[in-house]
């Protein structure tokens, strides 16, 4: 059991938070998406989603690009290579923890 607790404590805390885990899992399944798509999928409010994305960007897991589609502003989001590696390791760690 001690080993299990140690494995759980070694899980990536940035990704382990449920909201951020959902964001990273969604981004892992696509090449890129916009803010509206994540808002729809996660059912979070804009403030929560923004703060989670800021935390993930700070950790270098998510790349945020502000652009325009025609005249409409669009925020594009994609997982970085580091983010993908971290997510894969998190999933392995999750299996190992149990």
């Amino acid at each position, binding site marked *: 059991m001690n080993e299990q607790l140690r494995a759980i404590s070694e899980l990536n805390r940035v990704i382990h938070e449920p909201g951020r885990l959902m964001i990273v899992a969604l981004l892992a399944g*696509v*090449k890129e*998406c916009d803010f*509206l*798509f*994540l*808002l729809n999928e996660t059912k979070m409010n804009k403030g929560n989603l923004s703060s989670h994305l800021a935390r993930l960007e700070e950790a270098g897991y998510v790349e945020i690009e502000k652009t325009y589609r025609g005249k409409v502003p*669009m925020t594009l989001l994609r997982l970085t290579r580091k983010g993908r590696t971290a997510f894969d390791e998190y999933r392995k760690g999750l299996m190992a923890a*149990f």
Partner: protein
Amino acid sequence: MKNPIAQYIQFVRNIERAKREGRTGELLKAAKENAELQKIMLRPRQYATTNGAGEIGWGTAWLCFALSSYASVILPASPWRGRVGMFFLLCACVAMPICLWASKKFVIQPRIGYVAFRPEKSRWIGMIIGMVVAAGVSIALSLWLIPEMIHAAPSSAHHAAATTVSMHDTPSGSDKLLIAGGGLMNAILYLMFNAVSIKEHRWKWASFVLILVMPPIIGHLHPGNYLQMSPPVMLFQGSVYFLSGVITLIWFLRHHQPPAPEAE
């Protein structure tokens, strides 16, 4: 994404190891967690099939094939008859990509948001294998059907090599088999289109049964050879696909309203 077969083998190995160590409950818990993550990762791809655009595209293609066949029978003989038939054939070819593009541009992006998928090698491999299998089946079918459908005989002493072609008018066993097989293929495809949404739309099971059962019945009610039986079957299947897609699209539009302008 990883190879699902390799993942399954790894999963079975893990279960065996966990059984030996007496901790299956924990492993199942972890597997559940992982399955949940996998579900979330695959969710964005479901929008392409849950809004009915695929069904509308496929239904339109079948309707165009049927109209193309009818055009050659109904329209009076003129240079336009062939052109009208070709026009419907062209429409059939472009119906699916146009519907998917329009759904992405005018339905998914304004309501759900923009999403782009990663290029997958396995998809291309699947497409190439599919094309090879389809070409093989087509060649085998044509080789099998030519002796049955075409009766070749010398027509004149002046042209010994020339032949006349006459079609038989009563359905043979292979004609009925082909019609029933086509119905089965379309029914399976219908299930594949609706693998995600059929849990929510129970009425789609009725459409599935119609697509599966009606082609042999139409073939029975509309006697003739395979080519004569095909247009009404295509018309029916196209109509069912199209109507099913339109109902799904209306449901989708009602349940996914576009966000307020200040959403971003």
